[in-house]
């Protein structure tokens, strides 16, 4: 029984972090209708920022959130403004132009990181990196629990922002129908730019929270882009609540797969769920929650 509960805890905590990675992508997906394939690479960038702040300035990773999130917001804004928005204006047979551009942006980010930091692994060691507390014999990682708390808070904040604020309403309007929103006086280009920035900022938070318990090298982005993609599809495109469900589902699937089938099938479990959802629930969890 202890094995079962420990697996459950591991899955849920990891799922919280996954959700945070997924929300940014799903937001971008909802508003712009494209998959941001540089998502994991943006997270990598935030992780290097965190590493630099910790290693050279001695700033705690949790404080670095105040640096990495705004910085990545600006990066996201820049990417949208100078690489993606211009493509919108070009008539093209391929609407996937922007997706291809994000692939390119991702490659540039990876290679720039490799150029500056080399391929070597780095890690950030804090006092809480391997600290734990126990509840009824079940071990909780302090860093993961804090990350989970942050993920919940950020998601709740996000939800409130989208529902209650002016800007949030404009974002939802553009997501539902960009043309109609423009006719109502919403500046769709500006909304897209802000959304991209917010997506990048959210994944920056995920990266900064992940770094104390993981490690970092320039190629780390790719696997996380794939994870975010799976979560976005699981949750239903553009759904914030769906992304949380998707993230936790992926975390649980991986954890239980690893415990009861085999650690070497960890990644496979996530993808099996992915295919099952595509086959039997093709709109993702959004279909169930309606938000």
């Amino acid at each position: 029984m202890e094995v079962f509960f420990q697996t459950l805890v591991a899955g849920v905590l990891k799922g919280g972090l996954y959700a945070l990675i997924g929300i940014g992508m799903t937001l971008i997906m909802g508003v712009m209708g494209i998959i941001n394939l540089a998502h994991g690479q943006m997270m990598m960038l935030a992780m290097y920022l965190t590493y630099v702040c910790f290693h050279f300035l001695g700033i705690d990773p949790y404080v670095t959130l105040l640096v990495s999130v705004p910085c990545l917001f600006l990066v996201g804004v820049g990417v949208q403004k100078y690489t993606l928005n211009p493509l919108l204006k070009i008539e093209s047979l391929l609407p996937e132009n922007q997706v291809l551009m994000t692939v390119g942006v991702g490659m540039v980010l990876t290679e720039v990181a490799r150029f500056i930091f080399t391929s070597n692994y780095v890690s950030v060691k804090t006092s809480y990196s391997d600290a734990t507390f126990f509840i009824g014999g079940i071990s909780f990682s302090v860093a993961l629990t804090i990350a989970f708390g942050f993920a919940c808070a950020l998601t709740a904040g996000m939800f409130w922002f989208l529902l209650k604020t002016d800007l949030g309403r404009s974002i939802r309007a553009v997501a539902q129908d960009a043309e109609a929103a423009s006719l109502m006086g919403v500046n769709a280009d500006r909304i897209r730019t802000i959304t991209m920035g917010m997506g990048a900022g959210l994944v920056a938070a995920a990266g900064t929270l992940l770094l104390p318990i993981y490690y970092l090298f320039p190629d780390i982005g790719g696997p996380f882009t794939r994870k975010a993609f799976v979560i976005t599809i699981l949750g239903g495109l553009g759904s914030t609540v769906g992304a949380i469900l998707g993230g936790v589902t992926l975390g649980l699937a991986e954890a239980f797969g690893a415990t009861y089938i085999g650690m070497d099938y960890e990644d496979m479990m996530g993808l099996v769920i992915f295919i099952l959802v595509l086959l039997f629930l093709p709109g993702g969890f959004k279909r169930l929650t309606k938000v």
Partner: protein
Amino acid sequence: MKRPGSVVWSVVCCLLLACSVSARAAEGIKVGVVLPLTGTEAQFGEIEWNSFQLALDEINGAGGIKGKPIELVKEDDTGKPDVGRSAMEKLITQDKVVVVGGGYSSSVTFAMAAVAQQRQVPFVVNTGSDDKITEQKWNYVFRLNPPASEYPKALNSFLGEVVKPQTVAILYEKSNFGQSSSKSFAAQCEKMGLKVVLKEGYDSGAVDFKPLLIKVKAANPDLLYMVSYLMDAGLLMRQSKELDINPRLFVGGGAGFTLPGFYDNAGKAADYVFSATLWTETVPYPGAKAYFDKYQKKYGHPTEYHGAEAYACMYVIADALKRAKELTPAAVQEALVHTDVMTAFGPVKFVSYDKKTQQNKLPTYLVQWQGGKLETVWPKEIATKPAVYPVPKWSERK
């Protein structure tokens, strides 16, 4: 901004050109080296390349071979077998090297060895440790490091004489090296009458090893044996601490557990971890300690067994070149067969035993992290500190 940049570039290009011209003028003996200089194994590749250079400078400084300097031609295999193959082809056909050294990962080394044999150019393997590399009856392939199945030799004698455990759990990375060494360790455990209660592989790069470690905890083995590369090794130890897993000893099966980066990443969780290793600076071979000090002085960070293998490889090649009747691949192969030389890594002599041919035979060692330092603990004759065993429980550590 643009102009000074291009000026710098052209200066650099000119310098490079000048270098290659002057090198050609010196008419050195060309020796190929293939290592992973980029990619995930780059860290090991760098240590080995630095060691090759260190040895090269000493050999050339002492007058080279028959009055000629050795010239190393380095190629990057990026950790991929297909890239390794074409690197080997290039060295043989374009650079016309007489002998090749290096070979880090087992899968890449195996692919390269096949090319060397086909093209009849001797290849001195210094790290690739999959057993099958020297089991193919390839007469142009020599290996100076022990094969993967012999890595835990010292560990086995330590277990037999001191620990006498009953149960073992084995975790390994699903790579050629991980599978081959975990398999042979499991077989040896059975021979010694140990019960393997858990044996599981994982894919490198996982965030969370807890599902795997929970099972280890439930199985409660006396000994936890892990075959992992650097960062996975660090995470495994950190998460073992988080889950409060307390076997009587933690053992790493070479690779990641002996690198300084392991302690950097795992921190205090790395303390008391045992690891099989092929070399430490305290081994009783002439030049071992000197090599360690020279490396530290020149590159500013410590070296470990991979570096010693590369350093020794350069000396073995130089020795063969010295004895070769002429500087052709065939003559160097002939000279390598009769190698009998002492190096910082140990005595090198290519012999045949069991299914293996042209394989060097060496003892292995057991080291343990104690207070951030890697101490040799077994065999007793060369131990720098007594082994701390059984390791203290996590809750009893400071």
